[in-house]
């Protein structure tokens, strides 16, 4: 009797660990860095850490919609780069900053729309379309930017990064807003429920009269818009538009979403808290490893390991569902 009871308890504990592995790792990493370095858990560092999260958090919001509907968009980094290049070219040619930003957002939206059209109307798999846009897009960006050796960002724009409410930079507040709106749409509206439905069972949704093509078109357009918004936020932080701007964002952002519980198989996940915590974990790893003095060459290995484990856990969960 006793052994059975203790067996049950240990099983419950095991279940708890398996179900909450992400949170446990998150807390573990946080505690470890806090203990390893007094600098890590300071207000200024945490505030900076969130600042580094801001553009990723925004980016992940659009991507999460696409991934939950069981699709992919790997063009987001290129979309941010091209749209920013267009906007900055205009600004450096003397147009007002607002025009430049509007142009950026419009161009990003347009690229997302282009992705959506090719995917839904010409029926090319999303992976291939967005891969094409990723490669060609970076090419276009290079023509506009790298040819000139990069474009400096006007100081008026970079000064925005100084604004703070309490410990939160303005970018962080925008990120929270975008993510909160995303989460509300996802869980409280018919639109969000339909995204989940498509992700779970696209054929059934179609049989029930959901216009899958238009939904997907909308989701990819949204992803493009959001990517360019993230680009705007990022460029004000770094102060210079260069040839490797937003390079590799797509895979970092997809990993962050997956780590945060947005299933690669579609139909499951949250933006808040899920995707946000995924973003914070990855950024925290990079930040903490730097602070405790681990060589930057080791970072990709450690981050990669975490991403690999998260994706492994996702497929296990999916298999035993």
């Amino acid at each position, binding site marked *: 009797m006793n052994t059975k009871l203790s067996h049950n308890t240990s099983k419950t504990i095991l279940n708890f660990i398996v179900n909450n592995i992400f949170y446990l790792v998150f807390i573990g990493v946080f505690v470890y860095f806090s203990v390893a370095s007094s600098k890590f858990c300071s207000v200024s560092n945490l505030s900076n850490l969130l600042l580094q999260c801001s553009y990723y958090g925004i980016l992940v919001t659009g991507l999460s919609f696409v991934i939950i509907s069981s699709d992919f968009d790997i063009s987001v980094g290129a979309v941010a780069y091209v749209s920013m290049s267009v906007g900055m070219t205009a600004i450096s040619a003397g147009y007002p900053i607002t025009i430049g930003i509007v142009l950026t957002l419009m161009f990003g939206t347009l690229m997302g729309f282009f992705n959506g059209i090719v995917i839904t109307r010409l029926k090319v798999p999303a992976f291939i379309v967005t891969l094409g846009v990723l490669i060609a897009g970076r090419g276009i960006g290079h023509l506009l930017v790298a040819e000139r050796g990069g474009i400096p960002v006007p100081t008026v724009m970079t000064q925005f990064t100084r604004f703070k409410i309490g410990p939160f930079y303005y970018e962080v507040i925008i990120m929270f807003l975008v993510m909160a709106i995303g989460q509300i749409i996802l869980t409280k509206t*018919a639109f969000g429920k339909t995204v989940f*439905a498509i992700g*779970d*069972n696209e054929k*059934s949704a179609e049989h*029930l*009269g959901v216009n899958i093509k238009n939904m997907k078109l909308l989701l990819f357009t949204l992803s493009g818009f959001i990517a360019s918004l993230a680009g705007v936020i990022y460029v004000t932080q770094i102060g210079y538009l260069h040839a490797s701007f937003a390079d590799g964002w797509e895979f970092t952002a997809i990993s962050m979403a997956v780590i945060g519980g947005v299933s690669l198989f579609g139909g499951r996940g949250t933006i808040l808290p899920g995707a946000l915590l995924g973003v914070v974990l990855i950024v925290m790893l990079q930040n903490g490893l730097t602070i405790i003095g681990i060589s930057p060459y080791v970072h990709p290995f450690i981050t990669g390991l975490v991403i690999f484990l998260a994706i492994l856990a996702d497929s296990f969960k999916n298999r035993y569902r």
Partner: protein
Amino acid sequence: MNDKKHKSIRLENINKSFPGVQALKNVSMEFTASEVISIVGQNGAGKSTLMDILGGVKQKDSGEIYFDDQPVQFKSPRDSMKKGVSYIHQELAIFNNLTVAENVMFNEFDRNKSLFFLNSKKINAKCSKILKMIEPSIKPNDKVEDLAVGQKQIVEISRAIATGASIIIFDEPTSSLTLKEKESLYALIKLLKSEGYIIIYITHHFEEIFRIADRIYVMRDGANAGEVKVKDTNTKELAKLMLGDYVTKMYGGEDHSHNIDAVQDSDEVLLKVNELSSTNGIENVSFRLKQREVLGVWGLMGSGRTELIRGILKLDPITNGTVEIKTKNGFVGLPKNFTKNFGYVPENRREEGLFLDSPVLSNMSIGRIKKFANKLGFIKKVQEKSKAITATKELDIKLVNVHQKVNTLSGGNQQKVVIARWLIFKPDIFILDDPTKGLDIGAKADVYKLVKDLVEEGISVILISSDIDEIIHMSDRIIVLANNKLVNTLDHNQANKETLMEYSMGNK
């Protein structure tokens, strides 16, 4: 729920053709409220096409559909749904990641205001009203992924009610239900009937039809073949109507006289399985397969039927024992690549047997594709095609041409494609794992005839089946498995249902 339900639905002279086939020929039917109508027919008789037209999935070429004497046109599933048609497919249209209420009310979401907040209170209330009527144990806030299959089906039926359906079409609704769930489904259908719904019930199972249907439409080769009231008919008459002249072909007319003599003539052993054990659980199984015989393998689910085959073919690692096959040089161990001697038709033809999206041609040649290659490894197209066409004719596979996707064939014809794949090379032994599973009577009869033809040609057959009649009728000898062990070997004349069941349950 709503009183605007349609009282009658009429289909008049519906025609539909696909490239190369006339799927429906002047089909007419009439359904009235508070009635359960069953539509029966073999696979390919046109039932699904007709229902797809009523459900808006496919469009008719000509003919009229009347709802309460008003002609209607369906261009999409949405159109037909709006008119009150709910089509509950074999594969449920259910979203596991949403709640019960969200699934039930899915069609009621206002898509013009899709970015407004959903009124979840209202949704839950409306859903709970429906659930209270048909299945109070399910709650609106339950997650669908936690429900059993039967409950999920009820969720889908609830959605039909919430959508304001007048007519609910069930396509093989009991295929994945437990006995208890079946009973509650029958009760629910009775309830729906008394509420004034029109129910169309499509199934292969006669006992279900006689249990719940009022009237039966029989279809054959895409046309009306009869209309009977359930109380005025019986299974025999129904089978006759369904099959036309097929019925005599079943089990080759009289019982199994085909080749007993032939077997005794050539009483030679072809395959020796000695004390075989495998990692898959098979323990110490020994038997012999003679030339030109059908060896039946009988056992309950989980008795190790499929595992035995996988062991013999070395698809699972063997831990003990040998498998030897007769060659010119006497008995030798099986070569690594079993396709040299065996034609293997696995249990789940759709998952394990076929490349569904590929054409019939490559599905047939893939079994030993190397045989079709020239020295450089290119496929000899002409030879490949001519072999495939010959096999198609030999097995009487119904298709437009060999470039057609396998997916578009009926179940029986798909099964024949798998058999044809191996037949091209005339293997010594055919292993058929539940070859008639999911096939209708006509297609079954074809497979039985095919097995007999194989044996006539000198091929031995190992036949596994979960259909006890099939095993008894088809086999020359039967080995019985229980708990991964061989418990007995019976001759054809010793075998009857009772003894087989007793052995397989381990009672003897």
